[in-house]
Every structure is written in structure tokens, then in C-alpha cells.
């Protein structure tokens, strides 16, 4: 494409927006609303997932050994488990260590009634996972290792957390899908109105030998610009809103914020900014392409 043609296309893209300003504004407002909801939803989901992940990090399974297993063999098994992808980390707790911790935490040193370690033979490995959903598979694997007696799982916690995660995924996918479909429909309507306003001009272009690309590109650009502006506006809103809400929560509910660890605005916007802009431009592109392909076969 020649530079003069590129400049002409860009100019016409802007001209289209201004000539068709009320429809353009309506489209921008709708996309902004959709992407605002998308952004808010994203921020909430990300924070929820962050909380869930923090909770998941605390979920572990305990590996207990057959009586008489040597410490050397236990450490060997520990290394085998630690080498697996789904394992975040392992912690070997010997029977002596376990008794020491228990008596300190719960008996406050009153251990006279226990001349010997009552937990003898209760050496364990605590296994923390990267993905709590894989807990059962890992447990089955560990139980198959020689010298492992059994594995204590926390199935309910694992199932609940992975269930909540999955549900959040499905709901967000569904809502975002609907919002995007609405946005595409609105953009394509705006472009269709623009095309009908400029039908005379398009007709003349057709007679003097304009290519499909030349006729279509300003409309596609118009759609992408609407999408871009429609994405940028809610990003600004969400940025200030998120900061305000976060500081409010931290100030007013100090207790809550110590329990729940929220993501910072930078962490949220690191992904939200490119995703929102790409989604805005993308739906602008799809909506306008849909219309120009239908109405502008020159």
C-alpha cells in the first residue's frame, strides 16, 4: 500500500467516526460498558483465584511409611516425589521432629507422662502441590512406591477448591462471551449505518475502479478505532476505581486484608491492559469485517 493511500485510509477512518458520531459514540459507550464489566470481572476473578491459590498452597498430603523403613530410604522416596512436576515442594518430618513440634505447640513442654516418643514410626513427608486437582493421581503414585504404608489426603478441600476454580472459569467465560458477542453486533450495526450514509460515495468508488480493499479498509479501521477507544476508557476507570476500593478495604477492614491477600493494581493491569486493548481492537475488527463483507462486495 502506498503511503498516500495509507494516509487517506486513516483520514477516512476518522472522518467516518465523526460523520457518524452518534452511532460511533453509542458503540464506544457499549464497548466501554462491556469491557468495563470484563475488566471488573477480571479483577475480581484474578483476586479470587489469587486467594484460592494461596489456600491451595496450604493443602498438602502426608506420606507415611511401613514400620522399619530406614531414614535413608525415606529420604530417597522424598527425592522421588520432589522430582515430579505437580509437586511444588516436600518437607520431611521425622518422628522426633514431629513429637518436638507437637509437645511444644500443644503440651507446652508437659511431657512427663511420655518417657518415650509416642510418635515413633510416624515419620512423614508433607507434599505441597502446584495444582491441587492432581492430588488423587499423585497419591495413587506415592502409594505404589515400596515402603510407603499409606497417604493421608485432603480430598474435600481439594475437590472444593478445584470445583470453585472451575466454576469461576465457566461463569466468567460465559459472561465474557455474551458481552463480546453484544459488542461485535453493535460495532457491525454502527459500520452498517456508516456504509449506508456513504453509499453514494461507495457507488462512485465502484464505478471509478476502487478495489475491495480500498473501499473496505476505512470502515475496518473505523471499527478498530472504536474498539480501541472503547477499551481505553474503561481501563482508566477501572484503574482509579480499583485503587480506591483497595485502599478503602485496607483502611476500613484491616482484619480482612490480613486474611485475604489482594493483588496490586500493577499486577492486575499487567495483563488487563494488553488483553482489553486487544479485545477492543479485535471486536472492532471482527464487527466491521462482518459488515463490510456482507455489504461491500464491490
Amino acid at each position, binding site marked *: 500500500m*502506498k503511503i*498516500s*493511500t495509507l494516509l*487517506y485510509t486513516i483520514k477516512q477512518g476518522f472522518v467516518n467516526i465523526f460523520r457518524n458520531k452518534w452511532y460511533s459514540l453509542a458503540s464506544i459507550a457499549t464497548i466501554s460498558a462491556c469491557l468495563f464489566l470484563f475488566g471488573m470481572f477480571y479483577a475480581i476473578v484474578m483476586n479470587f483465584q489469587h486467594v484460592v491459590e494461596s489456600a491451595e498452597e496450604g493443602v498438602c498430603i502426608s506420606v507415611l511409611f511401613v514400620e522399619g523403613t530406614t531414614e535413608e530410604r525415606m529420604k530417597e522416596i522424598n527425592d522421588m516425589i520432589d522430582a515430579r512436576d505437580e509437586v511444588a515442594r516436600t518437607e520431611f518430618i521425622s518422628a522426633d521432629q514431629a513429637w518436638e513440634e507437637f509437645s511444644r505447640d500443644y503440651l507446652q513442654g508437659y511431657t512427663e507422662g511420655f518417657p518415650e516418643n509416642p510418635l515413633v514410626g510416624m515419620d512423614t513427608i508433607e507434599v505441597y502441590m502446584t495444582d491441587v486437582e492432581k492430588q488423587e493421581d499423585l497419591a495413587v503414585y506415592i502409594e505404589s512406591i515400596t515402603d510407603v504404608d499409606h497417604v493421608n489426603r485432603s480430598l474435600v478441600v481439594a475437590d472444593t477448591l478445584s470445583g470453585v476454580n472451575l466454576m469461576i472459569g465457566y461463569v466468567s467465560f460465559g459472561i465474557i462471551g455474551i458481552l463480546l458477542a453484544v459488542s461485535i453486533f453493535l460495532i457491525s450495526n454502527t459500520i452498517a449505518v456508516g456504509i449506508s450514509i456513504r453509499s*453514494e*460515495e461507495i*457507488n*462512485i*468508488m*465502484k*464505478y*471509478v*475502479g*476502487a*478495489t*475491495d480493499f*480500498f473501499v473496505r479498509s476505512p470502515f475496518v479501521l473505523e471499527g478498530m478505532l472504536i474498539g480501541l477507544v472503547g477499551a481505553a476508557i474503561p481501563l482508566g476507570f477501572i484503574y482509579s476505581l480499583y485503587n480506591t476500593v483497595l485502599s478503602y478495604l485496607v483502611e476500613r477492614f484491616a482484619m480482612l486484608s490480613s486474611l485475604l491477600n489482594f493483588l496490586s493494581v500493577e499486577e492486575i493491569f499487567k495483563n488487563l491492559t494488553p488483553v482489553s486493548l486487544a479485545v477492543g481492537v479485535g471486536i472492532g475488527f471482527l464487527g466491521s469485517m462482518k459488515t463490510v463483507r456482507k455489504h461491500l*462486495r*464491490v
Partner: protein
Amino acid sequence: MANKELLQMQRQQFIEENGVIFLDNVSKSYSKGVPAIDRINLRINPGEFVFIVGDSGSGKSTLIKLLLRELTATKGNVYVMGNDLAVLKHRQIPRFRRNLGVVFQDFRLLSDRNVYDNVAFAQRVVQTPNSEIRRNVPAILATVGLAGKYKAKTNQLSGGEQQRVALARALVNKPSILLADEPTGNLDPKNSWEIMRLLEEINEQGTTVVVVTHNKEIVNSMQKRVVTMKKGIIVSDQEEGEYIDED
């Protein structure tokens, strides 16, 4: 020899043998099945000036649409500038249309732009560099006698002037054929004659001109080739002919 050059040579040879416009037993029927054009044969040579006359429903507009490749023939073959329009692919149509200039009865100007921009528009569409546009547009406006009105908005012009802008727009890309569909239909006699004189001048410079008209006085005075159509067929084709009245 490159394929493109070979194709160009073949087209040139075809034009020499069959003319710039060649209709070979062409019929066009719409959905109702009654042919708008029925087995027409027509040959127009390079540099000719031809009037196509006939009443409403005689098939004149369908003929123009076939020549512009807005429609395709139901039967027979339409050749324009050596291109067989039946086999022309969709993506080839824009380039093909750059050989043609078109003028309509209702001018079809862009009312939000001035005279210069209306003419320059035709050049921008075919991606002519700006430097050439700046050279070509004033020159063609001078040819149609509107050099002094290049800044005027089209709604500030008379009908005759608007048609001259449309003519300048049709000619600025230097087409080989100019198709004028009722170019004087909305004009008074004085302006009609000015437009016809311009078309004659353009023809004298080598452009093939095809004018569809109802204007009997002009057709009879200009002593050009006249093709008369009636109910989709050519009923008369006369050199230096006259407008034949319908009985």
C-alpha cells in the same frame, strides 16, 4: 515475453479485429424470465461516437450495466477493451473499470466536498500519487471550463456545471471509453448543448464515447452513429443517423 505483455497484445489484436465494445449474440434475462436484452450483436470501434436511443424498457440501461460489468449476460459474450466480461474474476473488475469513464443523469457528486475534491476523489481511489493529482485535476477542470470554480461546493453550481464536474471526474483517469447515461436528462437546452460539445471534443481527442439519450434534437443535429433499441433488441443501427420515433 511476460504473460502480462502477451495478454495485452492479445487484447490489442482483439480490439483491432472486433472493436473496443463487442457484443456477440448477447441476451440478459432477469428473474421473471422476460429478456431485457435479446440476442444483441453490436460492435463499436475505437474512437467512435455512438448514440444509444430507445424508449424506457428498451434495454438501454441493461446494456450500460453489462458494459460496466454490473451485470453478466445470460447468453452470449460481452467484450470490452478485449476483456471477455463473462470470465472476468471479481478481483479483476476494479482494474477493468479503470478503462471506463461513466457519467449519469443525476451527476452523482459528493455534496460535502468541493469541485477539486470531487475530481481528485477519482484519482485517489485508483491510488494516483498526490503530486500527479495536483497536476491532473486543474488540467481536466480547465478542459471542462471549470478551472475558476475548483473551490466551489457542488451545491453552489448550476446543473450544467455539476455535469461538467461529473465529466471531469469521469475523464481524469484517462479512460479509453466514456459511457454517458442520459447526460443531458436534467439539463436545459443550453447546458445540454454545452455538455454535448464537450463530449464531442473528448471524442475528437480519441476517447470512444457512448451516449444513452432521449434527446431527439441533439441526436438529429449531431449526425453521429445511432443505435436504436426497442424491447431488448436493436432495431436500427445507422451511421450519421437520426432518432427514430416509436410508432
